[in-house]
C-alpha cells in the first residue's frame, strides 16, 4: 500500500499552497469547502446589507430612501441571494465539504473532480445573477405566476442562474451520498457516524431528489415567458396555482436543506461543551431522516389562501403537524443533553443555545401558520416574515455562526479572540430579537409583508425593528472583523482545543492535504464523554 510513503512525508497543512489557481483548480474537499465558505459568507453580507436598506426605508412611514419599485427589487434581491446563494448551498456545501471526509475517516469525497465542478457551477450561477442585476427582477424570491410571466424585469436571466445553482446542489448531494455510503473508515458503522454526517446525509437526499423539481418548474416558467406556452396562464388552459404546487414541492424540502445541517452542527457542539454524550443518539439520527421524509408531504401549507381546494388544504394542514414530532424530539434531546452537564459557555456554545431557544419560537409559530383558520388571518403578514426569520436566522444562521466559531481552529489553524466573539454574539442575539419579535406583533395587527409603506399606527414597532436590525448589523460586523483578524493575528491553534473525541479533531490543525496519516479504525461513536471516558482532557 502507498500509505507508508504518506507517513514518511512531512506534515504539510492543506492551506500551504499559495496562488489563486491552486484554489480554483483544487480538488481537495477542504479547499472546496473553504471556497464555498467564502462565497456564501460574501453572499450573506451583501444580502444582509440589502436588508438593512429595506429596514431603513421602513424606519418611518412614507418614502425615506427608496421608492416602491426599488423596494420590490431590494426584497427580491435579498430573498434570492439569501435563499439560493447563501442558505441553500450554505452549511451543506461549505461545512459538509470540509467535515464529512474528516468525520468518516476518508481522504476526500467520492468524486473530487465533480465536487470542484459543483463549485464552478455555483460561480457560474452567481455570475448570471450579477448580470441579471442590470435589469433586476421584482417578483420576490418565489417567482409566482402570473406576475413573473408579465413583469418587464429580467426574470429569465435570474431563474437561469438559479437553475444552474440547482445543478450544483444536485451534484453536491449525489457526491455526499456516495461518499457516506462508500468511504467510511473501517469500524465506522452507521451508528458511529457523527450526527452532522447524518444531517448531511438527510440534506443530500433532499438536494438530490427535490432540486430537479424546482429546476423543471423554473424551466417551464422560462418557456412560458419565451414561447408563450400556457402552463400557468388560465387564458391558455394553464393553472397559476400549479406553479405554486411545483415551486413549494421543492421549496418546503429546501427549508430542511437549509436547517438540517445546522441541527447537525449543534448536535456536535452541545455534547462537547456539556461534556456529556448526546442524549438519544439513534432518535437524533432517525429524526433527521424522518424530517427529510415528511418534508415532501407538506408543501401546500404555503398556499392555503391561494384558491387551492379545501380538501387539499385540510390534508396538508394535517400533514404539516407531523413535522412537529421529529423536530420536538431534537429539541428535547438537545435540552436533555444539557441536563446535569458540565456546561462551558464557549462562543460556539452560545450560538448553539441560541438556536435551541430561537428555533423553538420559529417552530411553534410555524404551528400557528400551519393551522388553516389562523393562517387565513396571518398569511402574507409580518407574522410570516418574523416566523421565517426565527427559523432561518434563529436556526440556520445561529448554527452557521456556531460552526464558524467551533471549527475555526481546525479550518485555519488559528484562534480568534473569544471575548470579542462573546460581545458580538450578545449584540447579534439582542439585535435579532429586537428586529424580529416586533414583527410578530405587526403581523397580528395586520401589517402586510413586501410593502414599502405603512399607515402611521405601525410606526413605533417598525422603528423598533429597524433599530434592532442596526444592532444586529453591528454584531455581525464585529463578528466578521474578529474572525478575519484571527486569521492574521490569532494564536496558533492546538490540534484539539476542546478535547473532543470526534475524528476531525484527531488530525493536525489545519489538517494535511490527505487528512489522515493512516486511515483510522473506529471503535466507538464520537460522543463518549463523562464517566465512560476517564482519559479525556
Amino acid at each position: 500500500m502507498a500509505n507508508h510513503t504518506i507517513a514518511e512525508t512531512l506534515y504539510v497543512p492543506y492551506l500551504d499552497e499559495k496562488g489563486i489557481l491552486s484554489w480554483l483548480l483544487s480538488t481537495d474537499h477542504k479547499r472546496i469547502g473553504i471556497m464555498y465558505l467564502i462565497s456564501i459568507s460574501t453572499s450573506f453580507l451583501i444580502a444582509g446589507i440589502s436588508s438593512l436598506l429595506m429596514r431603513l426605508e421602513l424606519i418611518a412611514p412614507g418614502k425615506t430612501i427608496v421608492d416602491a419599485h426599488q423596494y420590490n427589487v431590494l426584497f427580491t434581491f435579498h430573498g434570492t441571494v439569501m435563499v439560493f446563494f447563501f442558505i441553500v448551498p450554505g452549511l451543506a456545501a461549505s461545512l459538509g465539504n470540509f467535515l464529512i471526509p474528516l468525520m468518516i475517516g476518508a481522504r476526500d469525497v467520492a468524486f473530487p473532480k465533480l465536487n470542484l465542478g459543483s463549485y464552478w457551477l455555483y460561480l457560474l450561477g452567481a455570475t448570471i445573477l450579477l448580470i441579471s442585476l442590470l435589469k433586476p427582477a421584482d417578483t420576490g424570491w418565489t417567482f409566482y405566476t402570473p406576475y413573473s410571466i408579465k413583469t418587464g424585469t429580467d426574470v429569465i436571466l435570474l431563474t437561469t442562474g438559479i437553475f444552474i445553482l440547482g445543478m450544483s446542489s444536485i451534484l453536491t448531494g449525489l457526491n455526499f451520498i456516495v461518499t457516506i455510503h462508500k468511504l467510511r473508515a473501517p469500524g465506522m458503522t452507521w451508528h458511529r457516524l457523527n450526527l452532522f454526517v447524518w444531517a448531511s446525509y438527510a440534506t443530500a437526499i433532499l438536494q438530490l431528489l427535490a432540486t430537479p423539481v424546482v429546476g423543471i418548474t423554473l424551466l417551464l416558467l422560462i418557456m412560458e415567458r419565451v414561447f408563450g406556452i400556457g402552463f400557468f396562464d388560465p387564458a391558455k388552459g394553464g393553472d397559476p396555482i400549479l406553479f405554486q404546487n411545483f415551486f413549494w414541492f421543492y421549496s418546503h424540502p429546501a427549508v430542511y436543506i437549509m436547517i438540517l445541517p445546522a441541527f447537525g452542527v449543534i448536535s456536535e457542539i452541545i455534547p462537547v461543551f456539556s461534556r456529556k454524550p448526546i442524549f438519544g443518539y439513534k432518535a437524533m439520527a432517525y429524526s433527521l431522516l424522518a424530517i427529510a421524509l415528511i418534508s415532501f408531504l407538506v408543501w401546500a401549507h404555503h398556499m392555503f389562501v391561494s384558491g387551492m381546494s379545501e380538501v387539499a388544504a385540510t390534508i396538508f394542514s394535517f400533514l404539516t403537524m407531523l413535522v412537529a414530532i421529529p423536530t420536538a424530539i431534537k429539541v428535547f434531546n438537545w435540552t436533555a443533553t444539557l441536563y446535569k452537564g458540565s456546561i462551558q459557555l464557549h462562543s460556539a456554545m452560545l450560538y448553539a443555545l441560541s438556536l435551541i431557544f430561537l428555533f423553538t419560537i420559529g417552530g411553534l409559530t410555524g404551528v400557528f401558520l400551519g393551522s388553516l383558520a389562523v393562517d387565513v388571518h396571518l398569511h402574507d403578514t409580518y407574522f410570516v416574515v418574523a416566523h421565517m426569520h426565527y427559523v432561518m436566522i434563529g436556526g440556520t444562521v445561529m448554527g452557521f455562526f456556531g460552526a464558524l466559531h467551533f471549527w475555526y481552529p481546525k479550518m485555519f489553524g488559528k484562534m480568534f479572540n473569544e471575548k470579542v466573539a462573546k460581545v458580538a454574539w450578545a449584540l447579534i442575539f439582542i439585535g435579532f430579537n429586537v428586529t424580529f419579535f416586533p414583527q410578530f406583533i405587526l403581523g397580528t395587527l395586520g401589517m402586510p409583508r413586501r410593502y414599502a409603506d405603512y399607515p402611521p399606527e405601525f410606526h413605533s414597532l417598525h422603528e423598533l425593528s429597524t433599530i434592532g436590525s442596526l444592532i444586529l448589523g453591528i454584531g455581525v460586523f464585529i463578528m466578521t472583523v474578529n474572525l478575519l483578524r484571527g486569521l492574521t493575528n490569532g494564536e496558533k491553534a492546538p490540534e484539539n482545543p476542546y478535547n473532543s473525541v470526534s475524528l476531525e479533531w484527531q488530525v493536525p490543525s489545519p489538517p494535511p492535504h490527505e487528512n489522515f496519516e493512516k486511515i483510522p479504525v473506529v471503535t466507538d461513536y464520537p460522543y463518549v464523554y463523562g464517566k465512560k471516558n476517564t482519559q479525556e482532557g
Partner: protein
Amino acid sequence: MATKTHSEEHHHDHEEPHIVGNSVYIIVWVALMILTGITVWVARHNFGVFNIVVALGIASIKASIVALFFMHLKYEDKLTWTFALYPLFLLALLIGLTASDVFYRLSP
C-alpha cells in the same frame, strides 16, 4: 479516544461489475426506435381520455428499458434500487397530492 490507527486501509468492496455485451445495447437501441415509431403512430389516433395514458405508458416503457439495461440497474444491488425507486414514490406524491388540489377546487 474513540479511535485508534491501523496500518492498512481496508477495502470492503467486493462488487464485481456485471459485463454487458454489445448485443444488449443494440437490442436496447432497436427497441427504443420501434417504440418511438409506435409513439408517432399512436399520435395519429385519438383515444380520447386515454391519449395521455398511452403516450406516458410508452414513454415509461422506454425509460424503464434505458434504466434497466442501458444503465445496468437490473444488475445492481438493493441500495441502488432503493435510490432508483424512491424518486418514483416522490413523483406519485407530487402528482397525487397536486391532484387533491386540482380535482377538488370549488367551481366558480
